[in-house]
């Protein structure tokens, strides 16, 4: 299994500000993913982040709102920009690991926007 850490674990932010969430993996991985889980909802994929290339965003998510960095094979950041209360969610990063493409998740970052 993969060991994945996220920082911060939770935060309360003001409307209009930005928050950068960090995801650190214990070993090198090719693909990292960022998900959003709104209160009482399932997971929605925001984007796929591959090292050395631009992140690929899913429908409904744009780079200006959710810029992603992937500077190396063990680290990625997601920024939630110009936040509004609708951005209050849990944000999770995940990685694929192993020959069977198992997906492992970080503990999540619980964001509240006031």
């Amino acid at each position, binding site marked *: *299994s993969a060991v994945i850490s996220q920082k911060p674990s939770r935060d309360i932010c003001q409307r209009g500000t930005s928050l950068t969430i960090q995801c650190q993996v214990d070993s090198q991985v090719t693909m990292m993913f960022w998900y959003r889980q709104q209160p009482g*909802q*399932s997971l929605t*994929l925001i984007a796929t982040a591959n090292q050395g290339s631009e992140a690929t965003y899913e429908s409904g998510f744009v780079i200006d709102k959710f810029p992603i960095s992937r500077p190396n094979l063990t680290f990625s950041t997601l920024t939630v920009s110009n936040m509004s209360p609708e951005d209050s969610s849990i944000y999770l990063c995940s990685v694929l690991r192993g020959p*069977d493409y198992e*997906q492992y998740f970080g*503990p999540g970052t619980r964001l509240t926007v006031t």
Partner: protein
Amino acid sequence: AQSVTQPDIHITVSEGASLELRCNYSYGATPYLFWYVQSPGQGLQLLLKYFSGDTLVQGIKGFEAEFKRSQSSFNLRKPSVHWSDAAEYFCAASHRTGNQFYFGTGTSLTVIP
């Protein structure tokens, strides 16, 4: 379009009773299938997975799931539920390339004494 459906939003069972959580998928071909559990305030933990072969797969914490191609289902079962099993359960499917996951909407499990 690919999708994963969990028909039961919420299930309540008594401790010690058996459990079955339903999951149906819609895919062009048989996908990889997964069950995850999310305890309150926690991340997602993989319970079990199906890729091929034996259609009854065993997972952690005493859970098992059965893949039924004819019904496009991958239901999760446990013979005797413990209070600590109370959590949110997500079924997921992915293409066999592994780079696109689809999650169901989740089933919230309550366990009563």
